[in-house]
């Protein structure tokens, strides 16, 4: 019952978010210079031709009418058709989404595998060689731009040693390098947080109690401290995952992957209003959904938090 109320509340919040996001994006793309009709008509089109296209697209109508029209459609999750290709925006997005989802899942798995064990070891053996290695990895992850890492990985593992394909998508192999480039920066953030959180938990009083009971150091650290230390990590990892689901524009560009990021980028270049609007709302929905799941997971892990 509690869970049901929680879900309903969250759904209402999602609607508000979608309303705000769609309003903001609607006006922003109309404020920035550029007209889809001009893009479609080409450079040497006459004014009449451009006007005709505008009428066809509906962008000749007063702004407020366009806006209410857009809101009406958003309510039933109808994103309209792309201004450039005339295909349904929803279809375009859902075509690209599996690729982005695969990339994000692999990226976050890579990030977690790197970050959490090293973060924990760094905290447990603070100021040891382990810790320095961990901190160096984290520094590198934060300092290295992911596109550069992507190019480097391509150079080494696709050009020099032909271990992975250079570009394209298809089998699992195509996703490995982009997932690593994408996940490394995430790993840096998660690693730092894991270490800090574990160090903090190990300094808490209940750890002394655990030692006073005669528990082994392993139990003190991995049974008592770790569970508490991972709580903030869950939240941050979820949010990082949410970001990745919005599409990784640069990494998709580097690896020529036809994901959401590239779809949206093309939309922005061509001033494809409906595509941009639909894309932004879609990302907002995904992001809210991930947050919702993270909150549920958090309340399962943390007995102090009750779903309200």
């Amino acid at each position, binding site marked *: 019952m509690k869970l049901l109320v929680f879900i309903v509340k969250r759904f209402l919040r999602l609607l508000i978010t979608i309303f705000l996001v769609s309003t903001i994006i609607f006006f922003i793309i109309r404020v920035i210079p550029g007209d889809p009709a001009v893009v479609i008509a080409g450079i040497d089109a006459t004014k009449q031709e451009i006007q005709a296209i505008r009428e066809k697209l509906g962008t000749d109508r007063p702004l407020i009418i366009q806006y209410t029209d857009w809101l009406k459609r958003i309510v039933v999750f109808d994103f309209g058709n792309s201004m450039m290709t005339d295909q349904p925006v929803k279809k375009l997005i859902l075509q690209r989404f599996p690729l982005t989802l695969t990339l994000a899942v692999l990226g976050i798995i890579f990030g977690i595998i790197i970050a959490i064990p090293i973060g924990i070891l760094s905290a447990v053996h603070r100021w040891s060689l382990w810790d320095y290695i961990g901190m160096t990895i984290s520094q590198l992850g934060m300092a290295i731009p992911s596109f550069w890492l992507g190019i480097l990985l391509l150079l080494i593992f696709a050009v020099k040693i032909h271990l992975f394909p250079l570009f394209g998508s298809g089998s699992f192999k195509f996703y490995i390098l982009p997932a690593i480039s994408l996940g490394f920066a995430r790993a840096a953030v998660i690693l730092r947080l894991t270490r800090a959180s574990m160090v903090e938990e190990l300094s808490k009083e*209940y750890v002394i*109690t655990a030692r*006073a009971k*005669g*528990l082994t150091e392993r139990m003190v650290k991995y049974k008592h401290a770790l*569970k508490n230390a991972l*709580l903030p990590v869950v939240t941050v990892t979820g949010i990082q995952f949410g970001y990745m689901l919005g599409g990784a524009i640069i990494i998709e560009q580097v690896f020529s992957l036809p994901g959401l990021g590239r779809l949206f980028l093309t939309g922005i270049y061509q001033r494809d209003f409906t595509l941009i609007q639909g894309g932004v709302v879609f990302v907002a929905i995904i992001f809210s959904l991930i947050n919702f799941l993270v909150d549920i997971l958090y309340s399962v892990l943390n007995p*102090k938090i009750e779903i309200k």
Partner: protein
Amino acid sequence: MKGRNNFILKVKNLEVTFEPNLRALRGINLNVRWGEIHGLVGESGSGKSVTSMTIMGLLQTPPAHINSGEIIFNGSSLLSLTPEEMRLKRGKELAIVFQEPSKYLNPSLKIGEQIGETLRLHLNMRREESQKQTLKLLKLVGLPGEERILSSYPHELSGGMKQRALIAMAISCNPLFLIADEPTTALDVTLQLQILKLIGELKNSLNMSVLFISHDLAVIREIADTVSIIYAGKIVECGNVEAIFNNPLHPYTRLLLLSIPDPSKRGKRLKSIPGKVPSADSIPPGCAFHTRCPIAKGICREVEPRLKEVKQNHTVACHFPGKIVEGV
């Protein structure tokens, strides 16, 4: 139980410093008899908790260093045990209850698990067995032995219940020796008395010896059989509770007793000891108390008094034991 004069715990000349130059304990001597409650009294920063952590083998070294001394517990020298040998004694033969129950319980583990894991660890119990035993322990410490508490998390219990749960955890393996490190300080007054009574009862029913640490003399008078007074990392006076309260020999003890609020002196200004405890990095030479002592003479600034038995079972470290000056 061993004879009346046998000691379960003997701490001899224990010296602990913290990096870089904090002299936390400057030669502590402490004797606890079998079956008694020994009170350890002192102001904050005097070394009470360092003493208890050292006895439990929980001191982090470094930053702490145990420079010298001996801790003889039930015939074995604790400081010469390996960490693993010491670990096996902790929670089984020696146990400790801390001051703030809400901080010293793990927020994300159920109470039943936190008590039960000790039973499984030290007594090799199986899970069902440890659960049954945990219920018994909860009943023993005055928590209704309900399944509900087993599956509660610490934040679902009140402060008093949490302290009882911590006590249940400490006594779970029927230890010979319990250190109670200010177990009532964080509780409100009505609960304090209940917890004191509980510790007294458990001591008798489980045949434990207790080191009861407090800064509150009223609490000590209530519960302890013998008392040691600690000042700036050293024991300054030790004796039976009656001797300490009726005939204190050290001026510090005297002043401490005068600073207890007394209903018969209502309306008068409460006495307090002028000055403060010297910090561990600047202990004055001679008697550490001379800077605040109303009867200090030249010798007190130069020569450190040794702990001497002045009366039977009553030792004091003062050049002028029992000397009374007006108002003190």
